[in-house]
């Protein structure tokens, strides 16, 4: 399988030799080959998308290119010359900069320090030059439309802001080859557009960009070339203009794609969860209902309070005002444990920090949400745990050697599936999902949509927060839109469109 012919897409004409190439690049973990003899060319002034299912080997390939991982076989070439990076530092010295899939920030340091960490800076050698550091960081973030305090520890920033810090860090290094592994997973459409214009600018100035995403619309809008990987192997590489959505999906998952969204609810259902005048840190007097058998979508811009709404309902944080009732019983100030016992289950948005015990197995993680059911008299029943884990692994198509594999060894999307598996194993009355499909491939996404609908068919009330409006439109029955902590409106998903919701997100009520 040779490299595809590249470059007659929308990009400027390209140089003959690739700035970066892989030659039979492979990676083995024990007996398992997760990247198999991949040979690819990446050209200056071109955006090259890497596509593939969860666990296809995209991140692994990228890590080998950037010097994070050492290849088991094969080589990386820069300007046609074989190189071997023993560390990220060496990769950066050669102009190759990667944004890892999992945001790798130092939580205790500010944005400014994170952005320039490990970079040679002007000024007196060895000295920090704090004033200049702050100014430069502000400038970098301004390119991405961000104006927050660059000295606040990044642990205190929102998910979007953290992504922006990581992006600013990658951009600040002025790479020849910029590698982005799912940069938009946590972004809403607004920030995504901003990012794209920056990336297009970079491409036009000759940067080679390698781009990984599971949001196919984005890829079609942005990339010049696409490569599909499956099971660690190179399937094909084509100019973006010469392929179509269907073909990409089919070659990713190895079969024809099925209907993406399942049919919507047919009944009105009973109001199971009643949220009245709920207020918190940003939230101001929000009242919504979740009905059995139905899916309520929640839309909003970054920081609109979507996550906070779910956290307040689930008892993760204490509200400053308002009530939450489940089947008419007030559960406003109960703990997470008690809310869960009552049937309110929240799937949190950050898988690594909030969702997973990284040094434990898939089975342990999935079992953690259902310890009572998996034990008798306080003693664990390992066979029950393993069979539950296998069931979830199969249902969610978790790609792993066994359910005893540590989650740290899974690909990002598969880790997300483990989180889902943990919470879906409960039989909730109300299921709160915060960005449930973040990082999940298109094939599995539709499985998850169907799964959600199977739950609603059993009478579960579902609330979904998503940054992808198209996802909300396809999946939900109604969409509640938050704007700066207030409810901007609730619309019927079947009879509305993206524009209307976007308008509401921006607080324009005329829609």
């Amino acid at each position, binding site marked *: 399988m040779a490299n595809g012919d590249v470059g007659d897409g929308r990009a400027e004409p390209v140089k003959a030799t690739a700035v970066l190439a892989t030659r039979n690049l492979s990676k083995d973990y024990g007996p398992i080959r997760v990247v198999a003899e991949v040979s690819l060319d990446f050209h200056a002034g071109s955006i090259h998308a890497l596509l593939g299912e969860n666990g296809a080997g995209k991140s692994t390939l990228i890590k080998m290119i950037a010097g994070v991982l050492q290849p088991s076989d094969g080589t990386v070439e820069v300007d046609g010359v074989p190189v071997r990076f023993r560390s990220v530092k060496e990769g950066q010295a050669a102009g190759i900069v990667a944004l890892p899939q999992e945001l790798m920030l130092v939580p205790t340091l500010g944005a400014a320090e994170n952005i320039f960490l490990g970079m040679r800076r002007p000024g007196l050698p060895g000295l920090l030059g704090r004033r200049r550091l702050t100014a430069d960081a502000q400038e970098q973030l301004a390119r991405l439309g961000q104006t927050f305090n660059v000295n606040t520890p990044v642990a205190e920033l929102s998910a979007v802001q953290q992504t922006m810090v990581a992006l600013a860090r990658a951009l600040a290094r002025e790479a020849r080859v910029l590698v982005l592994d799912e940069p938009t997973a946590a972004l809403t459409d607004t920030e995504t557009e901003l990012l794209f214009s920056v990336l297009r600018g970079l491409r036009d100035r000759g940067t080679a960009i390698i781009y990984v995403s599971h949001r196919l619309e984005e890829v079609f809008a942005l990339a010049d070339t696409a490569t599909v990987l499956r099971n660690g192997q190179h399937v094909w590489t084509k100019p973006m203009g010469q392929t179509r959505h269907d073909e990409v999906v089919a070659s990713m998952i190895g079969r024809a794609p099925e209907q993406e969204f399942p049919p919507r609810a047919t009944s009105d259902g009973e109001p199971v969860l009643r949220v009245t005048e709920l207020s918190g840190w940003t939230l101001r007097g929000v009242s919504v209902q979740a009905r059995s058998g139905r899916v309520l979508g929640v839309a909003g811009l970054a920081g609109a309070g979507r996550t906070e709404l779910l956290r307040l309902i689930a008892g993760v944080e204490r509200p400053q005002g308002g009530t939450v009732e489940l089947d008419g019983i007030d559960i406003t100030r109960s703990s997470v444990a008690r809310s869960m016992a009552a049937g309110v289950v*929240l799937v949190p948005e950050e898988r690594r920090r909030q969702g997973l015990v990284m040094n434990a197995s898939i089975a*342990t993680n999935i079992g953690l949400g259902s310890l009572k059911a998996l*034990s008798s008299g306080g003693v664990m029943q390992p066979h029950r745990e393993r069979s539950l884990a296998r069931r979830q692994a199969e249902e969610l198509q978790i790609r792993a050697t066994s359910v005893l594999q540590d989650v740290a060894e899974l690909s990002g999307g598969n880790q997300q599936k483990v989180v889902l598996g943990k919470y879906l194993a409960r039989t909730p009355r109300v299921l709160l999902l915060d960005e449930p499909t973040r990082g999940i491939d298109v094939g599995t996404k539709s499985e998850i949509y169907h799964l959600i609908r199977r739950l609603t068919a059993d009478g579960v009330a579902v609330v979904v927060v998503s940054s992808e409006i198209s996802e909300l439109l396809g999946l939900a029955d109604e969409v509640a839109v938050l704007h700066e902590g207030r409810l901007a409106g609730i619309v019927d998903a079947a009879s509305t469109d993206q524009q209307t919701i976007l308008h509401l997100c921006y607080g324009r009520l005329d829609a």
Partner: protein
Amino acid sequence: MTATTTAGPQRAPHRRSALPARLASYGTLLGLLVLIMLFTVLDEKGIFLTAGNFTNILEQVAVLAMVASVQTVVMVVGDFDLSVGALASLVGVLVAQLLTAGVPVVPAIAAGLAAGLLAGAINGFLVAYLGLSAFIATLAAMTSFTGLALLLSNGATIFGLPAGFVALGQGRLGPVPMPVIIALALAVMVWFVLSRTVLGRQWYAVGGNAEASRLSGVNTRAVRFSAFLVSGLGSALAGIILTARLASAHPTAGDPLMLSSIAAVFLGVTLSRVGQPTIGGTAVGLGIVGVLGNGLNLLQVNSYVQQVLTGLIIVLAVSLSQIVRRRR
């Protein structure tokens, strides 16, 4: 072809067989085995590798093993307990005072264990509910407990304990010293709870990621609290057995247990694959500590040189297993 499969039941599920994992945890024994071999060869009189001497080693680490078992629990939830040694001293003094004041053995022991529980509850409250760092909270507790032990004993050794009590520390069941039996029983109990029960799962989960555990419905505060309760109880037991073994209570007798217990757990962690405290790992750590002290004593190494060697050998043993692990 790549061989990754979905973890679903229909595909060959156990690619990573249990064998390499088991080998890895046998591998943790490597440092210890090398040590044992070394001493067997160096010990010309052939005393080291005898049942009698191994009984001695077991007896010498028995009290430490009790503390290390419960320290393992605290370290599983991601904390330390620096007060274990001082608490053992305090409980020893308390029980000895009760006994010399004429309180019968069983109520005296019960009072000692209750004091241990109370102490554990205080530590647990400070750490889990008030949110103090475990280091500060248990260090402060250690200081206070030492002061209390000194006050209670007036700084002196308390002796003249009843034979029924002393038998707990000096008696034997067949050839096996009582402290060894008690330590073993405690270790097995802790092992069972850690690896087979819901509580054990929760301890590991909270130690692995407290936030994720809380969001999974685990009452993380109660779970951390319970770890300190266990630690208090175990340290109290160790203090009681130590007092019985020495047939006397001294207000600082248990102090060395603090650093040694943490060291034993850490040795176990360093040597283990998962990088988590386990009872098995701690047992190996205890083994290294015990064999090293005994072996060097038998070889009649100068006391000061012995200290120098102890440090060196521990580093070598750990480095060795580290290097071997990387190879694998």
